[in-house]
């Protein structure tokens, strides 16, 4: 369906001018609210990622509103989410909306670290209050850094979270700063707050051991669980399209064992245009019986996001 939102065409809160990354949908009675991470430059010229949203009507063709206020504050001095929130995964839980954030904080020897936070909305996702100043999931014994990209769904009364964890920081070129490697993992919870995890990589590598896997999104259809995610090379992924993010696919019968088969993803970079260099940050959602997928294109979503709809004939 092509690109449906360009942040440079709108006025965004928090002095944000570009980027609409990792779009994620909350279906409301008369609209679909799509949260995304957008960016401002701080006083030292570095980016801060903020959450904003845009409301579409249910045709997903027309924008009917855009957030004019701060959806969620960045963290206080020294907190895990001081320098940005990206992405922002929303899930309905009774009459409240839970948001699983990845909070970013800047470091010295490596550029950043990340942890997963929780925020709760009681006004259908207009505003969110943080569940504490600290994260609900952060570095642990076998997951040493970079915990983020949560996607939460309820199956059989149990909360399931797919997320990513860093496995190493590696110097590919001595004069360059270290680059990160991260993989998709799975956690479960009875309350959405306290999580059990085993640090197991659940999606096999396709490129090599340094493959970076990000932003899993899971849905259930026709008796199977389906996961979309994105993956890339660990080095040279910013400028060289062949190393950049692509969208991968895996399926599972039991939410434990996943069979990766990217050839069945059914989506790939376009010949030209906004998603011809890379595709990343997929988010699947269901609306009026149809399966949609939001995703970003070139430059990690600097100029917006697009939408695809699952062809029911396949």
């Amino acid at each position, binding site marked *: 369906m092509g690109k449906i939102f360009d942040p440079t065409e709108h006025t965004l809160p928090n002095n944000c001018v570009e980027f609409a990354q990792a779009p994620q949908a909350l279906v409301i009675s008369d609209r679909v609210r799509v949260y995304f991470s957008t960016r401002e430059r701080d006083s030292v010229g570095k980016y801060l990622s903020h959450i904003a949203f845009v409301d579409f009507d249910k045709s997903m063709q027309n924008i009917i509103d855009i957030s004019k206020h701060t959806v969620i504050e960045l963290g206080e001095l020294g907190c895990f989410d001081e320098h940005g929130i990206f992405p922002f995964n929303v899930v309905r839980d009774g009459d409240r909306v839970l948001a699983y954030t990845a909070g970013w904080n800047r*470091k*010295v*020897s490596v550029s950043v*670290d990340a942890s997963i936070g929780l925020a709760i909305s009681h006004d259908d996702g207009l505003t969110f209050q943080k569940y504490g100043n600290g*994260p609900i999931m952060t570095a642990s014994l*076998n997951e040493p850094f970079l915990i983020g990209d949560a996607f939460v769904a309820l199956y059989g009364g149990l909360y399931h979270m797919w997320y990513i964890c860093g496995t190493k*920081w590696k110097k590919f070129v001595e004069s360059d700063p*270290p680059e990160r490697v991260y993989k998709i993992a799975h956690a479960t919870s009875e309350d959405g707050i306290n999580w059990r995890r085993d640090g197991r990589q659940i999606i096999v590598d396709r490129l090599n051991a340094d493959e970076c896997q990000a932003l899993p999104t899971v849905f259930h259809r026709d008796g199977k669980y389906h996961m979309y995610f994105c993956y890339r090379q660990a080095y040279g992924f910013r400028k060289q399209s062949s190393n950049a993010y692509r969208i991968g696919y895996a399926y599972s019968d039991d939410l434990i064992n996943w069979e990766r088969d990217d050839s069945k993803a059914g989506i790939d970079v376009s010949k030209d245009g906004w998603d011809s260099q890379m595709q990343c940050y997929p988010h699947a959602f269901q609306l009026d019986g149809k399966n949609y997928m939001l995703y970003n294109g070139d430059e990690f979503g600097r100029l917006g996001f697009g939408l695809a709809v699952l062809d029911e004939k396949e």
Partner: protein
Amino acid sequence: MFKWEKLGKIFDPRDYKNESWMQEFAQSPSVLIFERHVRVYFCSRPAPAPDGQYLSFLSYIDLDRENLLKIVNICKKPILSLGAYGTFDEFGTNPVSVIRDQDDVRVYYAGWTRCESVPFNAAIGLAISHDGGDTFARLGEGPVLSCSPDEPFLLGSPRIRKYGEKWYLYYISGKEWLRTDGKPEPVYKIRMASSEDGINWVKFGKDLIENKLGEHECQACPDVIFHDGKYHMFFSYRNSHNYKSKEGGYRIGYASSVDMTNWERCDEVAGMSVSESGWDSEMVSYPHVFILDGATYMFYQGNAMGRAGIGLARLESPQNWSGV
């Protein structure tokens, strides 16, 4: 009130021609008792980098069990390397607490990383020795105790204990970073967690010790010892500002509890204060109390946060602590 006889400074790395990684500082003493000697683990530092920043390494000395004033051995290299790129303990391992676990020895330590907006962050790591405490290997690249919704940063100052079959970890958690004219300064408080295996922890989730110096008091090194039917905690506390001076510097406080969750603070009882002059005349901190061959001792660090080394005191009275 406890009455301590100060036995003097035991070890100052500056008095020795040591390896480059042990130039100054002996911080956070923690003892492991052997048949013939007492091993004192502590944290020591190489000279600072050109930007003034320090690393900190885990070290030990061995003291003659018959005469604790006599050093019989100094470790030749750090017992644990620093962590890899981006890990929680890349820039230092300090403080430390040691415990036997059957044939193994475990060290719990705070690992340090460096951040952009605040100078550092910390989380608690675990390393295990299978050779009686000479060398250690990390259990994993990440921490065993890290931040959570109401403990947002700076988890450190671990003291590990085992009572019955249960493990207890007393530690500190950051509350707030205060903005100052210079670097931000942290406020931290004493907390506790328990565990069946010493690896997976359940946090108690409350500050254990009431403030004495106001909301911004910093509390550290909760050293707990069970004796005469009560839990006794010696700890350090200071102001959040001007703490590098004698006036604002670390002092040793005391609290007791019968159930480990409700603590009554009574610093006057601690009985350990700064000396008139000498190596511990400006600060005393990081107490570690232990019982050996019928006597009770306290190791502690002195001026300039332990730059001047560690010293020892012996308890004179009381013999029975139940009425303290």
